[in-house]
């Protein structure tokens, strides 16, 4: 099975992605993660204003059968969260890189992303090529 992994994003091996625009990072989970989870029924995200530390658990996504922690790919302050997605987490299945973003973060250190994977590297990881 092949999924879309946009080139302008960076990825973690724990399947979160980051879109960096200036000092604002948009965070979500990859299409591969959404497929692996199956029918997604629950999402928990931190409140706006929360300070996140790179690597810390910032939320939870649950499918009918699985519970997975969400890991912060970058440190910074949460300036927005996707309230619509919290109400309808099943929307992750439709547009994980667009409408179904999770958090917007005002980042404190762009070097946090130095070790994050490119789309090509991430695709190789999840497709085993």
């Amino acid at each position, binding site marked *: 099975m092949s999924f879309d992994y946009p080139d302008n994003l960076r990825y973690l091996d*724990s*399947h*979160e992605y980051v879109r960096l625009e200036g000092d604002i990072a948009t965070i979500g*989970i990859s299409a591969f*993660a959404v497929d*692996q*989870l*199956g*029918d997604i*029924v*629950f999402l*928990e995200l931190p409140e706006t204003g929360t300070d996140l530390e790179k690597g810390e658990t910032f939320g*939870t*996504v*649950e*499918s*009918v*059968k*699985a*519970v*997975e*922690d*969400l*890991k912060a790919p970058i440190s910074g302050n949460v300036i927005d969260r996707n309230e619509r997605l919290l109400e309808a987490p099943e929307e992750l299945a439709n547009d994980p890189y667009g409408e179904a973003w999770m958090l917007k973060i005002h980042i404190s250190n762009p070097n946090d992303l130095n070790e994050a994977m490119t789309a090509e590297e991430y695709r190789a990881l999840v497709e085993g090529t």
Partner: protein
Amino acid sequence: MVMPYAPLTFICNPDIVITPADSTALSRTPLYHLALEHKARMTPFSGWEMAVQFSGISQEHQAVRDRAGMFDISHMGKFVLTGVNLLEQLQPLVPSNLLPLQAGEAQYTVLLNSQGGIVDDLIVYYQGHTVNGTQRVSLIVNAATTLKDKTWLLDHLDLATVEFQDISLEKALIAVQGPAAVDLLQQLVTADLGSVKRFGHVECSVLEQPGFLARTGYTGEDGFEVMVDASVGQDLWRSLLSLGVLPCGLGARDTLRLEAAMALYGQDINDSTTPLEAGLNWLVHLDQKGDFMGRAVLEQQKQNGVSRRLVGLQMPGRNIARHDYPVLHNGTPVGIVTSGTQSPTLGYPIALAYVPTPLAKIGQALEVEIRGKPYPTAVVKRPFYKRAQYTL
């Protein structure tokens, strides 16, 4: 997230989960290759490599509630007993009175240990007398406990008069479940399925091969469980597929059984829970039979009341109570969730949990601790879902 996720929440009994490193040692059912053909997602379960989902848990779940789905349950243990006075011999091992069973009838019951704890839950199918005058009983038990049950039965039956056959690996077992299941299956078998009562069973031709069909299941819907030779299993699966029966995995099997509040062995019931604690009072027949294993404990519990009970919980919010989450009362831990999921049919989270008897009343307000925080819940009636009665 850490993925691909290996053992899922619903198979989290540490005794039965095989880690992926051991996956080469996993057994495969006669239908394993069909699951691969369907590109099912596979998972280790009780030592077997089983399909956890085909098209998606919610879709499979809905198909069983609305029309018909099929499950490969060939991993379950299958025993055949032949001999004399079989029901009399099984009688001391279970709290149910088996003696009223007529040929073609079955009883869901539990094997008990001396403390009244549940060794396993199982179905006893009484098949009556064979041509040479001996009796025949089939038992279907859980996959994880097949060896344990076999040892238990061999230790407790009189092997001078009972022949014990383990046919677990020789047979394929397919559950066909849903409101349309009986009509669809009817096209492939010779017996008149409509005349078989709930928990009834019959032997007949399935695709012109010998088969055993029982009107039983683990979904809360009408349907049959069909046992055929391993070599016939694949043909049966393909025939059902061409009739539009949707392949379903263990994921949907778990959400379906949980909505119907059917216990899962190793999770909701185990060696240290009694049937009275688990709300299985309807299969404890103290007044109808003599001594049986664990009777003293059950009598005492009946007289004094049980100290804890398995109850249904409904969560008013979106947070899902899962296996092993603590149950709180006014912030104090009082119990434990044994099974929990988002209910696909009802659209809200449901769970089974053991709580102290004084807190087991319908409507009782409690909390479930989820990732360190308490969330409100309330005790509700079991089952969570009940199908419209089918007519016979």
